[in-house]
């Protein structure tokens, strides 16, 4: 930045840097520090419903620190929270793998499609992503419920005699996540596959490699950045998902995002909800930071 000199007034450059920095700092970064602070407080019946971090003595003097780790102890010791975190990680991981299996051939086909088809195909993949997330999840209730479209179709085809119970189970949650996040997986895969240098595959073929070997040894490794980017883009938000387990899952589908919501809104335990959020953040963001460092090095 330009140093201070007599007559200096904030110029265009400073404004372009400071405005986003201050806005995002105030409304994105600072809130996390407050969550951290409140996660160290105690839940009390007051407005706001948590104890202060600094307790000022009545006659003046230095304040006492009111921080406590009780909430984190609860998170670590109460089976519910650990189980809901592991459950969320498992559901998100399985869904990510399924998405990869569905998205890879789609992205590959799009990248190999005639050049003049590609914008339309890309738009076809992006359009559902612009359409309301909530509405797309809601659409699956009508499909998956006992007397829904899927059971209707399977029964009239004579494949099953009695309806399959899918709605309000983990199956429905997996389907919902795969469906909702699929475009996020396809786009980065397409981006790397489209840039793939085809002469490398020709070289592999010329040197006698069968197509499957060319795919395994050239295409797959070259598309690794897309696989990593797509997987992170879907996995991390999926772990914290609330809408999908709430609308499609059953009462026994416990995912960490739903638990935060319940602690916050139903039990009004803000400090505990904050501690769960911090734990979730550490579990999710640490691998991301390490991975970024690794990729940049």
């Amino acid at each position, binding site marked *: 930045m330009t140093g201070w000199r007599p007559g200096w007034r904030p110029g265009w450059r400073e404004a372009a840097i400071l405005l986003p920095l201050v806005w995002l700092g105030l409304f994105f970064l600072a809130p996390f520090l407050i969550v951290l602070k409140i996660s160290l407080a105690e839940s009390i019946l007051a407005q706001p419903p948590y104890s202060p971090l600094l307790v000022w003595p009545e006659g003046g003097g230095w304040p006492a620190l009111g921080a406590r780790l009780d909430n984190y102890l609860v998170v670590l010791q109460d089976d519910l929270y650990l189980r809901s975190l592991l459950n969320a990680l498992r559901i998100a991981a399985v869904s990510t793998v399924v998405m990869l299996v569905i998205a890879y051939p789609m992205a590959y086909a799009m990248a190999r499609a005639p050049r003049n088809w590609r914008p339309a195909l890309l738009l076809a993949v992006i359009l559902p992503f*612009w359409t309301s997330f909530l509405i797309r999840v809601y659409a699956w209730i009508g499909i998956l419920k006992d007397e829904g479209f899927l059971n209707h179709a399977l029964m009239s085809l004579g494949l099953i005699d009695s309806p399959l119970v899918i709605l309000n189970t983990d199956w429905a949650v997996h389907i919902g996540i795969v469906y909702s996040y699929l475009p996020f997986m396809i786009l980065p895969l397409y981006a790397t596959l489209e840039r793939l240098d085809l002469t490398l595959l020709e070289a592999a073929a010329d040197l006698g490699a069968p197509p499957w070997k060319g795919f395994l040894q050239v295409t797959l490794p070259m598309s690794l950045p897309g696989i990593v980017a797509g997987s*992170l883009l879907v996995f991390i938000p999926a772990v914290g998902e609330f809408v999908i387990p709430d609308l499609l899952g059953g009462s026994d589908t416990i995912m960490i995002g739903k638990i*935060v919501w319940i602690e916050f809104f139903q039990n009004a335990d803000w400090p505990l909800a904050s501690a769960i959020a911090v734990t979730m953040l550490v579990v999710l963001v640490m691998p991301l930071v390490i991975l970024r460092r690794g990729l940049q090095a």
Partner: protein
Amino acid sequence: MKLSPALLVALALGLAFLYLPIFLLVIYSFNDSRLVTVWAGFSLRWYGQLFQDAAFLEAAWMSLKVAVTSATIALVIGTLAAYALVRLGRFRGRMMMIGMVQAPLVMPEVITGISLLLLFVTLNFDRGFGTIVIAHATLGAAYVAVVVQARLVTLERDLEEAALDLGATPAATFRQVVLPLAAPAMLAGWLLAFALSLDDLILASFVSGPGSTTLPMKIYSQARLGVTPMINALSTIVIVAVSILVIGASLLAKGALIKGEHRAD
């Protein structure tokens, strides 16, 4: 290289998977029956009911106001952030800005929501329209920054340097050279922020106050009770409006949407 039949089938099945649920939703919004899966003839009655429901109309109006305001703020902040990151070289806080622009894209919304609410409580903000706008503008700014950044990276600096050489101030150069060139990406970014705001349930639920119910909050409270034809009708309107907007904008911007999108990783 030719597309093998297996690949074509995979692509067709994938697209069918993406679109079938939406089509079913749209078709059954015209169903006369209250039972959502039994077809009883074409009818517009659910649309009629929808337009007589004052609570829905109010929520829709609220959502539109929030979306327009927050997308516009997001456009300003996101564009400035993208410009600073691509064109202003090294500055103090650059790494922090990169982090703050990318993190909201993957951050689970419950975490962002809870942290914003706690901020507003700490600062003693009245919760309502303003706090929802702030929440959506912050998330939207990150998306705008990513899309505009992707566009600025591809622009040659020559034109900007020529303008500066001819005596234009940096601010004038930005206004008269950078903005027109980045306009398609900015439009795409605005639309993305607008769509995100219109769609958001979680941030709005955390930071809204009494009397500021957005459309997704209203849809959600109904959807929890099960499928109703009225929600299908409402969804159809949203889907058609968004599709027209996106297809129109992508035709206008000559693919800027698509280019911005697949660089968003």
